[in-house]
């Protein structure tokens, strides 16, 4: 027994030293290329590129969002490169997995830093975004999150976002429901273990006090129990709610709709931007989603030419309809491009100098993206764009005025 252990630990030590060395080996070569001492000449003699990093979950339960952002941003990068790049400089993108975990996100960020990242598109989900924001502030590296909705995601001046913030979505939803007089009795179901969902829910309930409707039931669910929604729906039904507010993602929402149909409960369902994409779920019975309304900056069926083109290219490249995450990422890359062009940023500038220039540039640029026309940013990092309410009619999206 003792002998075996010794042999085992000896082997493990060997394996570890090997892996450590491997780590350091790759590490040193990475720092070499990014610190720009020895290999800077090499870089300039080759061809200088803009290195844009991306971070989001491509494995784990949140992989669907990270995947969409990855595809959307890759598509934009491809288009820009084909059109000649940013001021003639090509873009290179490296997209790293964070498994929707703050610690892994920081690791991904550090690995991108080793790679020599000039600017960051990310991270996709809120909690990792806050953690990365904290380190990127210290390094002064520019970050633009396509879909980090929590307030703290853009708390530092180097961080901007493409999407709406949570409180803003909750507030606008409540206002819309109140002003349009959609219902007098409203129920809310939310994911109490999720930052995005609770953020919207809280703002919604707060604003509901000022509006002409009553929140008659507020029921939660958690990440561990998100297959069965019969109880939450039953309570909403018993309370007589005419509208059920669903501030969470379409994965769970598709189950809610199915179960509501199973119990003959047909209120108005109202969601937020996470609801977008529900029609793209493979095999989903679209009849269930009829009359579903949600607030979204992006609809894949819009008549708009730019959107049409984006949707077509995306479908060709990835075989699925882009959702709001992909659209936000697509606009995010174009925003980075616009800001870089505004200040004539070149790849030989240090990431910190780029960040300082980008901060000034972001508030000056206006882009016509797929999530909004005339999209601009405030110094706080928030985008200014109008939310649209989309309603699903006969299995298709329709914009409601």
């Amino acid at each position, binding site marked *: 027994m003792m002998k075996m252990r010794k042999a085992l630990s000896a082997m493990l030590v060997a394996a570890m030293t090997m892996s450590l060395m491997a780590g350091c080996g790759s590490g040193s070569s990475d720092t070499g290329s990014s610190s720009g001492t020895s290999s800077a000449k090499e870089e300039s003699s080759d061809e200088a590129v803009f290195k844009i990093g991306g971070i989001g979950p491509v494995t784990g339960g949140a992989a669907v969002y990270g995947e969409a952002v990855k595809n959307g941003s890759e598509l934009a990068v491809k288009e820009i490169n084909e059109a000649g790049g940013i001021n003639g400089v090509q873009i290179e993108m490296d997209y790293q997995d964070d498994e929707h975990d703050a610690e892994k996100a920081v690791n991904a960020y550090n690995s991108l830093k080793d790679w020599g990242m000039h600017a960051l598109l990310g991270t996709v989900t809120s909690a990792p975004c806050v953690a990365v924001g904290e380190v990127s502030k210290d390094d002064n590296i520019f970050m633009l999150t396509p879909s980090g909705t929590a307030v703290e995601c853009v708390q530092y001046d180097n961080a901007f976002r493409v999407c709406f913030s949570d409180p803003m979505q909750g507030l606008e939803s409540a206002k819309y429901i109140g002003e349009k007089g959609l219902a007098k009795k409203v129920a809310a179901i939310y994911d109490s273990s999720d930052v995005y969902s609770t953020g919207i829910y809280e703002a919604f309930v707060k604003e509901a006090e000022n509006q002409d409707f009553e929140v008659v039931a507020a029921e939660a669910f958690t990440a561990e129990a998100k*297959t*069965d929604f019969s109880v939450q729906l039953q309570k909403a039904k018993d309370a007589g709610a005419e509208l059920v507010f669903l501030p969470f993602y379409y994965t769970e929402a598709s189950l809610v709709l199915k179960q509501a149909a199973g119990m003959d409960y047909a209120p108005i369902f109202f969601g937020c931007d996470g609801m977008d994409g529900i029609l793209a779920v493979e095999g989903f019975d679209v009849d269930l989603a009829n009359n579903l309304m949600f607030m979204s900056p992006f609809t894949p069926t819009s008549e708009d030419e730019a959107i049409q083109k984006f949707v077509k290219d995306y479908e060709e490249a990835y075989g699925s309809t882009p959702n709001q995450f992909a659209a936000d990422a697509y606009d995010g890359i174009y925003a980075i491009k616009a800001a870089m062009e505004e200040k004539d940023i070149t790849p030989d500038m240090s990431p910190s100098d780029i960040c300082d220039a980008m901060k000034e540039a972001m508030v000056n640029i206006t882009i016509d993206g797929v999530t909004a026309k005339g999209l601009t940013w405030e110094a706080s990092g928030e985008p200014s764009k109008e939310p649209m309410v989309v309603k699903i009619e006969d299995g298709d999206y329709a914009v409601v005025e």
Partner: protein
Amino acid sequence: MSFISYLINGISLGSVYAIIALGYTMVYGIAKMLNFAHGDVIMIGAYVVMTAIASAGLSPLAAVLLAIVFCTVLGVLIESVAYRPLLNASSSLAVLITAIGVSYLLQNVALLIFGANTKSFSSVVPVPALVLAGGKLTIAGETIATIISCVIIMVVLTLFIKKSKAGQAMLAVSEDKGAAQLMGINVNGTIALTFAIGSALAAVAGVLLCSAYPSLTPYTGAMPGIKAFVAAVFGGIGSIPGALIGGILLGVIEIFGKAYISSQMADAIVFGVLIIVLIVKPTGILGKNIQEKV
């Protein structure tokens, strides 16, 4: 009325847990290992059914049969490659960790093949919903199908173990591996058979789980797997009727906890009840009390 409807929903959820727990408990009873990859075999089974219907155009019944065959082969393969070399290892934990590795492997293979996007699983259960009390109560066809299949499987399994030679061999192996071997029982073969049955059950569970809750991702199996594991322990792990009782009770407690106590605390309530049950009856509801020999 809402009480009855909560009860029905609880039984519906519980019957899905029960059918997954059956597979857990079978394998545990014979191989004495917690097969953490069981939930992921369920997920694979559901994907096979979906692909067979959508891409190959098979009828639902043929697709389910295909999934059963596929999962059986997969289960035997996993057992012979990853588990069998470790069944005689000096610690029973070794095989537990390998099972976790297999679980990660299946999830990531599914992620690469089918992508992260949620797929909606169209129900393959042809049973119509039962409407009672003038439309006030509806019992979904999936619920009826799940409960019926659960009872059928339980009866067949019990008969198989009690009456057939292979079943008796399983019992013998679960009692004492060494003695069984001395009696001329092919221990490895028996364990492989157990995995085959367990995985076939997983395919059925996958179909029923995804018919009742039609959203399918590479991680669909993980949480129901853990819940079913809890259900199996609840009922007394190793006991086949225990898995049924444990599963249904777990589902009912989860729904009632959500309905009458707090929807945020559903998990805490489920696990809290489990702890209380185990402290009062340390081997689960139907578990055998094993006398310690000195």
